[in-house]
């Protein structure tokens, strides 16, 4: 078998097209093609023979592990040319090897967050065309046309972080269309979307491709939405290449092929998995949880996501929370689960939830707030299953994962363990067998397949035997096999008297749980801000500008700062001016130069669109740093003059106090100009200037920029991880060592998510042609007269500060 060698794309030094070149649909042919990922025992695909005609619309289906995504990635030219991967046979696009034809293809993946590369809508659509070296003047017409084709009517500088999941996917599609690809590849483009989002994105895809005529290959699990939109369905089987193919009508009609697809977990149109009858249906007359006039919010500072909710949950009851995206369903679920504090109103755990059997013993009457329970108490009463299973994995093996909640379960009010080791082993064995995970007991939870992860995350919560189970979109993206297993598992829990609350769009799933429905009324949302959460649910909420919490770090300037004088200046000129102004302060420790620069900077506040209040909000850490530096020096500096404070080991005297103040003022004055200027600096503008004017390698500059865009998302993911881990029994209280361990685990969890997202983002960028030696820039970095003026002002300020210090006789070189 020949080793696949990476062929570098031809250097595209040539500026392409004037924008009028029509789309040429691409044809695909595979002959004996195979691919083996590094470190896998089996090839992902082997001996694939396939022909797809130009302009054809093809749906790829098959069980997980059949190599569908691998094929799409290969066609997109983004399979990693890693040392240990190996390919065989040939895979051609219009007669060229696929990885040499990358500029002919566009790829869309399922996670909306990593389909967006840039911070503004216009830049994001232009990104792929820039990489293909399309002339700058031809790019903007393409951007407008592509946004029109996907029906996104938004200003070009609209922040991409404020889009819903469905809008992000349509934006990604627009970016692909702007590249004028002959082949559009779609890897489960609607798997992470709610039903409305699915239709929205499906229609955009179908309409725009009908217009462009490009060939389309799509991988999807839920076929109902796509059956009418494709010409041919190709079924792949693990290790067997193409198992069968035909029109949707032929394959989905009752018969052996349909049955085989059903057995493989494919969501064939019109099929709902069969369930065994329940043995003990219906809620008992035993209340577990009661909410009255409840308002919920993710953080203390934002407007409530939902208000005036009244809810009652009884043992054995199924309850589905439904409603449009952004209506606060997930926030409500987190609050009911004791993971978020109530904004107002009450969530009361009833006596039966505090102590099983309490109601029948007649000892009732006592109620408690779940939010106040320790993590170890919470897990034995309310179990919350997050949408992303990986958020809740806290150990290194499947077995430990199942035992964790049991080991950490505590009796109310005490530190006594609830279960002995033998009992824990017995229970874990039982769960392993029940879920068919026995052969994986020593595996790392993160390495399981998607369906296995989902089952494990439900099982870990169930293992602690909570009386109330809360799940957020448990069936999202699951194949029909996992769906059925989940439904059966939860039906058994219901039969045993456990109550189940599910946030879900899945009506079939609600029916399987015999659930009553609590419809969240969008009208009950008091402040109508921008849509709160894309199809994310308990996954991190979008960084929508209107909902971003003041406590979340952000590197994007707000609208006022961006339109300010500094906001319109060249970032490099701003930085150079700051360096010129503050260099004297770095060289000298003296009060005069520091005071001059600090005061002058404060006078510049309006130019950055800042008022004193907003400045203090940004600058208070600098004040703290300055005070700390002052304290340090005052404490240890050379004493002279009267002793003001005697601490035994050190003293503060008049002399050391003065030098302390000078030190603190210097630290403050060096930082302030940079803070003012950077608060008005858009990272995108900075990157453009660094790559175009400072001539830094654009691959690194734009790669770094794309990574930084994930900052807000990761900060929210940190908060989500904290809640998800509390729901597993990881406490945020305890000794310093316990806290450190909990923090270390949470840091690992964040890094895993960060690297997974980064890897997907890299695929997106590569599929958009990023990484070549040359590219064009739709937005030119400019150096205007005001930038020259800014430089001169910086230089003058530095000179004045120096001269004043020398004249006053305070100039005092720190290296002297």
């Amino acid at each position: 078998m020949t080793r696949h060698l990476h062929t570098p794309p031809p250097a595209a030094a040539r500026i392409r097209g004037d924008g009028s070149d029509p789309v040429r649909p691409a044809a695909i042919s595979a002959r004996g093609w195979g691919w083996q990922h590094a470190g896998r025992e089996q090839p992902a695909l082997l001996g694939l023979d396939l022909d797809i005609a130009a302009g054809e619309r093809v749906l790829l289906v098959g069980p997980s592990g059949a190599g569908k995504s691998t094929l799409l990635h290969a066609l997109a030219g983004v399979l990693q040319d890693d040392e240990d991967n190996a390919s065989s046979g040939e895979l051609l696009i219009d007669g060229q090897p696929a990885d040499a034809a990358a500029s002919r293809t566009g790829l869309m993946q399922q996670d909306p967050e990593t389909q967006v590369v840039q911070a503004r809508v216009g830049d994001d659509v232009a990104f792929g065309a820039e990489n293909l070296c399309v002339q700058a003047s031809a790019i903007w017409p393409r951007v407008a046309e592509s946004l029109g084709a996907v029906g996104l009517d938004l200003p070009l500088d609209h922040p991409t972080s404020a889009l819903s999941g469905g809008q992000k996917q349509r934006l990604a599609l627009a970016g692909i269309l702007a590249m004028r690809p002959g082949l559009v590849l779609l890897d489960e483009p609607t798997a992470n979307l709610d039903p409305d989002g699915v239709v929205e994105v499906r229609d955009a895809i179908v309409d725009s491709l009908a217009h462009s005529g490009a060939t389309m290959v799509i991988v999807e699990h839920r076929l109902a939405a796509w059956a009418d939109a494709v010409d041919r369905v190709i079924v792949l089987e693990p290790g067997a290449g193409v198992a069968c193919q035909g029109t949707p009508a032929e394959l989905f009609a009752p018969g052996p092929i349909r049955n085989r697809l059903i057995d493989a977990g494919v969501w064939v149109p019109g099929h709902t998995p069969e369930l065994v009858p329940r043995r003990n249906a219906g809620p008992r007359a035993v209340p577990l949880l009661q909410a009255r006039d409840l308002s919920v919010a993710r953080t203390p500072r934002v407007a409530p996501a939902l208000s005036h909710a009244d809810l009652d949950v009884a043992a054995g009851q199924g309850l589905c929370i439904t409603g449009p995206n952004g209506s606060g369903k997930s926030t409500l679920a987190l609050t009911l689960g004791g993971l978020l504090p109530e904004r107002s109103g009450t969530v009361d755990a009833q006596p039966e939830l505090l102590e099983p059997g309490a109601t029948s013993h007649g000892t009732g009457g006592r109620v408690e707030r779940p939010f106040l329970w320790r993590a170890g108490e919470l897990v034995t009463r309310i179990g919350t299953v997050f949408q992303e299973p990986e958020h809740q994995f806290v150990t290194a093996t499947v077995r430990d994962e199942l035992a964790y909640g049991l080991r950490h379960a505590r009796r109310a009010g005490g530190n006594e363990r609830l279960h002995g080791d033998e009992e824990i082993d017995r229970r874990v064995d039982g769960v392993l067998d029940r879920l068919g995970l026995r052969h994986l007991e020593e595996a790392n939870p993160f390495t399981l397949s998607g369906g296995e992860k989902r089952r494990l995350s439900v099982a870990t919560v169930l293992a602690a035997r909570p009386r109330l189970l809360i799940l957020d979109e448990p069936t999202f993206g699951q194949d029909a096999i996992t769906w059925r297993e989940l439904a059966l598992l939860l039906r058994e829990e219901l039969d045993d008297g456990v109550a189940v609350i599910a946030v879900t769009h899945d009506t079939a799933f609600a029916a399987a749980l015999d659930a009553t429905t609590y419809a969240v009324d969008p009208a009950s949302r008091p402040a109508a801000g921008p849509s709160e959460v894309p199809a994310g649910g308990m996954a991190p909420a979008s960084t929508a500008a209107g909902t971003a919490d003041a406590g979340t770090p952000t590197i994007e300037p707000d609208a006022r700062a961006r339109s300010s004088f500094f906001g319109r200046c060249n970032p490099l000129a701003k930085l150079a001016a700051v360096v010129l102004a503050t260099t004297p302060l770095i060289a000298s420790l003296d009060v005069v130069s520091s005071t001059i620069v600090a005061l002058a900077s404060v006078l510049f506040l309006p130019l950055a669109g800042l008022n004193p209040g907003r400045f203090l909000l940004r600058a208070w850490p600098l004040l703290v740093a300055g005070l700390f530096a002052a304290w340090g020096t005052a404490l240890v500096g050379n004493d002279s003059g009267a002793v003001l404070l005697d601490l035994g080991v050190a003293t503060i005297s008049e002399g050391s106090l003065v030098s302390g103040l000078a030190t603190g003022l210097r630290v403050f004055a060096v930082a302030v100009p940079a803070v003012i200027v950077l608060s008005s600096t858009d990272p995108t503008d900075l990157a453009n200037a660094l790559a175009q004017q400072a001539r830094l390698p654009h691959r690194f500059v734009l790669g770094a920029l794309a990574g930084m865009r994930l900052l807000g998302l990761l900060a929210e993911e940190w908060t989500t991880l904290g809640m998800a881990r509390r729901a597993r029994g990881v406490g945020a209280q305890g000794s310093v060592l316990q806290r450190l361990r909990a923090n270390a685990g949470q840091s690992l969890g964040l890094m895993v998510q960060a690297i997974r997202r980064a890897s997907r983002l890299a695929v997106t960028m590569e599929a958009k042609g990023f990484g070549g030696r040359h590219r064009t820039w739709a937005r030119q970095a400019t150096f205007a007269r005001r930038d020259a003026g800014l430089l001169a002002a910086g230089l003058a300020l530095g000179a004045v500060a120096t001269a004043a210090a020398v004249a006053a006789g305070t100039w005092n070189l720190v290296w002297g």
Partner: protein
Amino acid sequence: MNTKLTTAPSVRYTWRIVDIVVASVIAVASGVIFWAWNTTHHLLDFLFLAFPPSSALLAGMWLFPAVLGALIIRKPGAALFCEMVAAVVSSLLGSEYGWTVWVSGLVQGLGAELVVALFLYRHWSLPVSLLAGLLTGVFGGVNDAFVFAWFPEYTAAMKLAYVACMAVSGLVIAGLGSWALTRALSRTGALSALASKRAAQERAFG
């Protein structure tokens, strides 16, 4: 399938897009972790107030991206790049060191970079990681105490104490911490697209 061939140096030393984006996100995520820890680390403030140079004991958090980036990406310049991105992120968030944080990032990144370059970007064992953490701490400490001279009134001994504290912090938090985190990440399969994907199977003192 085919037998494994020795890797051409060009592949080994060339940055792919995934290397660049992951490196940058490592720096960003480190920033988020530091931001989150900020609220808890004030527990240690009393210690620093009594002996101010000891504040450098926490500086290892800032040195963390350099070593972690090198261990995960395993390409020339990874330590430098990660530390630079971390510095840019912190300056955009509003760093207390102004623009000088960019220079600090460069200097600290160089410390770790020198060590892994000395081992020809081939050895990623625990001792290499500790050494990289140590040197990045020494570089950072010298930069703070002597180049930018943030504490002109400290005695020479106190400045050296500051450098020593930062070195210890680099050794423990950046050196040991990054090494342990890389192995834990490798076990989760998150590194599967990267040169460090088998880090967990490598010998600690290989």
